[in-house]
């Protein structure tokens, strides 16, 4: 009886650490080898990697489960099974992402050169040319959209969290919810309709694109800011009130600085979200092959529209147009990546330290 009690505390023996990775590699190699054999048997020389992965994974799972169950017992075998399932799901989720990044990078580097960043497409037919006009357009239009959306969004969020009570606040919340779901093309149409009132039909203007984008950005900024303001502990507000600080100064000097990092991150994410918008810009900013630095006049190219038109209107030298489209896509992705990095840096440097 006593020996049994003692031994019941001792776990079963663990599998050696190296076993599971070794098994994984060997089963995938075996699966690969099998496919090679099968392929050489039949006429097709192609090796399909999907059966390799599926077969390798299944046999590895089965083998590890059986071994673990025999040596380690049911509980640990189940643990290993679930671990494999979770890791598989994670890898599956990662595959499209990596594959996308890989495709964009490999196809984009062909034209990712100095000319691409120093020339517009004016008078370019076939090879050469660049996307400087589109980059300038994207920077200006999203920049203006940000300048419009950030103050409005932050102030609306402050109203909702710090002041809003009753009907007005509920109404604002409702409209923010509705606006979050507005399709981007509708925002574009709205901006177009708005500008037609002032400038007549057929108007094309970078500013219109900025308005359309800010319609999409504002709800995102409001939501992000609202969440960040809500998590500022009430104790800090009370601490300020107790020092005889009026409410507006408390919001400005205690609540906002405390949540600054989160708000900045939210803004970056909002920018990243709209910088790739194509449809509304196609409508109101239009497209052009020339440089246009003035958002208040005439058509303005943007990167997403550049990618779209390069792809949609391929010239005789097809490859040149496709290469430019991919290079544009790569540039856009890099911009989004930089924005995300900036967001991380901001949240690192601005978060309350302690």
């Amino acid at each position, binding site marked *: 009886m006593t020996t049994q009690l003692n031994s019941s505390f001792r776990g079963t023996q663990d599998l050696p650490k190296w076993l599971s990775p070794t098994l994984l590699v060997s089963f995938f190699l075996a699966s690969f080898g099998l496919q090679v054999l099968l392929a050489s048997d039949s006429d097709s020389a192609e090796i399909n990697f999907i059966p390799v992965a599926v077969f390798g994974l299944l046999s590895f799972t089965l083998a590890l489960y059986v071994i673990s169950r025999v040596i380690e017992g049911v509980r640990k075998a189940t643990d290993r099974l679930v671990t494999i399932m979770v890791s598989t799901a994670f890898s599956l989720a990662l595959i499209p992402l990596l594959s996308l990044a890989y495709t964009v990078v490999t196809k984009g580097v062909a034209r990712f050169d100095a000319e691409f960043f120093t020339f517009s497409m004016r008078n370019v037919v076939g090879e050469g040319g660049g996307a400087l006009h589109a980059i300038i357009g994207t920077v200006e239009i999203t920049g203006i959209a940000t300048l419009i959306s950030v103050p409005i969004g932050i102030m609306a969020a402050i109203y909702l969290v710090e002041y809003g*009570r009753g009907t007005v606040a509920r109404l604002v919340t409702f409209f923010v919810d509705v606006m979050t779901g507005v399709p981007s093309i509708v925002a574009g149409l709205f901006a177009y309709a708005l500008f037609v009132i002032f400038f007549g039909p057929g108007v094309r203007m970078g500013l219109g694109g900025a308005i359309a984008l800010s319609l999409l950005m504002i709800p995102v900024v409001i939501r992000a800011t609202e969440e960040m303001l809500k998590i500022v*502990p009430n*104790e*800090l*507000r*009370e*601490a*300020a*009130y*107790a*020092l*005889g*600080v*009026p409410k507006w*100064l*408390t919001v400005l*000097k*205690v609540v906002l*600085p*405390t949540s*600054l990092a989160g708000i900045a991150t939210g803004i970056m994410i909002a920018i990243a979200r709209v910088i790739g918008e194509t449809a509304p810009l196609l409508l109101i900013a239009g497209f052009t092959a020339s440089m246009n630095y003035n958002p208040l006049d005439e058509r303005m190219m943007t990167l997403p529209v550049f990618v779209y038109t390069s792809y949609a209107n391929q010239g005789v030298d097809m490859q040149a147009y496709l290469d430019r489209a991919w290079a544009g896509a790569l540039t856009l992705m890099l911009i989004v990546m930089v924005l995300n990095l900036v967001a991380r840096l901001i949240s690192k440097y601005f978060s*309350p*330290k*302690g």
Partner: protein
Amino acid sequence: MSKRIELKSLDVYYKAFLAVEDVSMVIEPKAITAFIGPSGCGKSTLIRTLNRMHEVIPGARVEGQLLMDGEDVYGPDVDPVRVRRQVGMVFQRPNPFPTMSIKDNVLSGYKLNNSRMSKAEAEEITEKALVGANLWNEVKDRLEKPGSGLSGGQQQRLCIARAIAVEPDVILMDEPTSALDPISTAAIEDLAVELKEHFTVVIVTHNMQQASRISDMTAFFNIAGSGLPGKLIEYDKTEKVFSNPTEQQTEDYVSGRFG
């Protein structure tokens, strides 16, 4: 400066709920007054009415009169912000501003209000407040470091320094030591005793030893049951409340028979 506070049949409500009923008492200047009583009897509610922090909560209101050196705190023209500049408060959990350095925390009463001051003045105020809060020696070499890097007890003393830096007349403390270890608690208690040289000190405490150790006057509050308002049961000199209370309820509470 130190002010005398007079409560005249004060009722405190949260919306329709009467949380504290009919409190009348006089809180003496240059003394420590302790509020004791079981949880939920309205000690925090009452102490927060003394600097109008109560009305920060939506729907909260006060009936009756509250006089500070004869001046009606809830008078029609009174600005709650001005009241709070004269009545400082220290909370249960230390709440230094996380975005500010130790020094800026001490000066926050000025800085948050956009008051301008010279560098020398700022340094003088900082040192005086930190010395007053018995924290100077521990932090004088790291005034520019964030306040949230201090220990809990140091943070609480930083909050006291912040409160006394603006030179209020009254200091309210709502269970200032309940989140602290015994050593930090002792430090805060010593500090409270020093503070009464200059200020009117009101302290809410759960700890009856603490009340009997440091306070001059003790107010005992109780509730008859949940949902009923808290009431002031007995208010007297601390020795009297703890050794020879008039009310049976007080006797039961201070002797640890309930609560």
